[in-house]
């Protein structure tokens, strides 16, 4: 199969859907001259890519209003950190409009944003923030970990009637992968089992999927077989897939580069502790960034970001791979 990058895969879904759906418009600062997934789309769809002034509250709010009245805006927020300047429009307007009107309004809106560490951009350009969006009912939250999912999830996002936070990990844009040429959609709410295994379930988000796979390789050397799950959509979340895996493995590690408190790792771990207690044969483990802003220093940023060694240690700490204790 043909190989393209994550950025190209997103672009492909955008272009395909824009060809099908006239209501799609792209909005953002410098949208017509953007690099990355939307580069050059203006030439293919003149008049449907709109440059915005640096007024996120106004233009994200306008996108909500446009979505409510018939367009399907795709807004580029650039760094997800900038969602904070228009947080009301996301959290109180976009997310709640449908509910507050008793279903009277639909808000087909995609908010794209780059997230994550790795580019040495410091505390205000490197955040994860997805736990904030996952917390808020009415929002859907997606973050692909590879090009094939990126294309399929974007195709789905562009056919949803709810506001979608489409979070693109900034360190994955140039990651290549096999991507089918024909259009297809990856449904929301379906985790993918990236690697099968029987010893420990490892749920990993975004760029952390690679980290988890690296850890799984290392652990396999000592006979510990990790089952690596990529939830792909964080809201809705495929609890069932995680439960199925934990029922089999008896152990859970969650790897996420967001902060620990009220984060996604806690979310998954708590759900399993509540609903799969009987299956757990050891403590769950969370591997996250620390409770600290993202430091600029490359050495510190690297230490901030979870790595394979931490995942290996966490899997071991669950007791996975140890012989089951003899009964009584």
């Amino acid at each position: 199969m043909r190989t393209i990058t994550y950025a190209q895969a997103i672009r492909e879904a955008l272009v395909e859907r824009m060809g099908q759906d006239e209501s799609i418009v792209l909005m953002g600062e410098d949208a017509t001259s953007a690099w990355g997934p939307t580069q050059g789309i203006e030439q293919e769809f003149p008049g449907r890519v709109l440059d915005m002034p640096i007024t996120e509250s106004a233009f994200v709010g306008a996108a909500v209003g446009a979505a409510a009245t018939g367009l399907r805006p795709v807004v580029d927020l650039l760094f997800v950190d900038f969602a904070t300047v228009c947080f009301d429009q996301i959290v109180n307007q976009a997310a709640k409009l449908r509910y507050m009107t008793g279903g009277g309004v639909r808000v087909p809106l995609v908010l794209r944003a780059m997230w994550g560490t790795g580019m040495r951009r410091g505390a205000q350009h490197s955040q994860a923030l997805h736990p904030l969006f996952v917390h808020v009912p009415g929002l859907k939250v997606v973050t692909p970990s590879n090009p094939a999912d990126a294309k399929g999830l974007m195709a789905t996002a562009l056919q949803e009637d709810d506001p979608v936070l489409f979070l693109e990990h900034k360190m994955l844009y140039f990651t290549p992968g096999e991507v089918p040429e024909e259009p297809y959609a990856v449904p929301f709410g379906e985790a993918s089992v990236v690697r099968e295994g029987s010893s420990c379930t490892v749920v990993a988000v975004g760029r952390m999927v690679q980290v988890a796979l690296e850890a799984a390789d290392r652990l396999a050397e000592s006979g510990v077989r990790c089952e690596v799950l990529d939830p792909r959509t964080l809201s809705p979340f495929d609890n069932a897939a995680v439960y199925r895996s934990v029922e089999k493995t008896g152990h859970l590690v969650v790897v996420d580069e967001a902060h620990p408190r009220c984060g996604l790792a806690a979310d998954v771990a708590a759900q399993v502790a509540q609903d799969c207690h009987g299956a757990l044969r050891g403590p769950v483990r969370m591997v996250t960034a620390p409770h600290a802003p993202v430091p600029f220093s490359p050495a510190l940023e690297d230490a901030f970001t979870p790595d394979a060694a931490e995942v290996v240690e966490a899997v071991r700490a669950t007791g996975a791979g140890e012989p089951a204790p003899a009964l009584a």
Partner: protein
Amino acid sequence: MDRLPAGAEEPGLRMYRVMAMIRAFEERVGELAEEIPGAVHLYIGQEAVAAGVCSVLRDGDHLASTHRGHGHAIAAGCEVEAMAAELYGRSDGVCSGKGGSMHIADLGHGMLGANGLAGGGVPLACGAALTARQRGTDDVAVAFTGDGGANQGAVLESLVLARMLDLPVVFVVENNGYAQATSAARHFSGTDMSARAAGFGIPGAVVDGADALAVRDAASEAVDRARSGRGPTLVECRAQRFHGHMEGWDNQAYRPSGEAERLRAEADPLALLRRRLTEAGQPADAGAELDRAEKESAARVQAAFDRAAQPAEPLLTALTTDVYAAH
């Protein structure tokens, strides 16, 4: 929009009907305020603004409102029965009881919603205008905000955005002299919104918000500008709220004593329009027509609230529906 009245009437009479309905609705809400759950912000005194502005709107146009939204909703054509039910949180309310006073919305009438966030609705109206622009229709959108809300970043940014894209949007700042207890004189520091708009390259006008005909004229010019692709306008309507900020909460100690009473006597938009519609040169039966409009409004509102106040079985399954279109 402006759907209450029948076909070929004079704009003045149609506006009067709308204003009478708003007045009747709001007076009744005021009477029932202790019984109605939550908070209500009454529009009494400002009726001419909603009625005047919406009198120049038509199907396909949109408006976004504020926390003080009943008047805009009625002027947009929302049914008072469904609104009354909404205020009581009933499942037959216009928002199925999930919105309440501060969130009355009704897309069928172009009403994008009241809003709990000061200034929060203004970008939404820009969005409706963007839809019109992208589709090449000549629909327009109206963004209402109070004087206090007009200081919000979301509103000021909307001026930048609307000008840059030349959106067919009309910003209506209802300056009723106060943001809660803070006087507009203080929070505007002696400036006015139309002067501000000029700084953003947007034509502005200041108009007497008690005078429905004047509001209509200013709105008409602004809406024409928007419809014909000449971009946004800001209209500041100097209006008055006769009640406190919110029923049952505001002792209005910050107001000069007797101000509200004086305003009722001297600056009542209904009385003003009535004078205009019954002065020399107007049809002889005009006054009777207005009386009838008031009576009909009062009766319809009375019935609406009588019904809304009836005990109703809540639909508890609704708690988790409508969070998503599909999940």
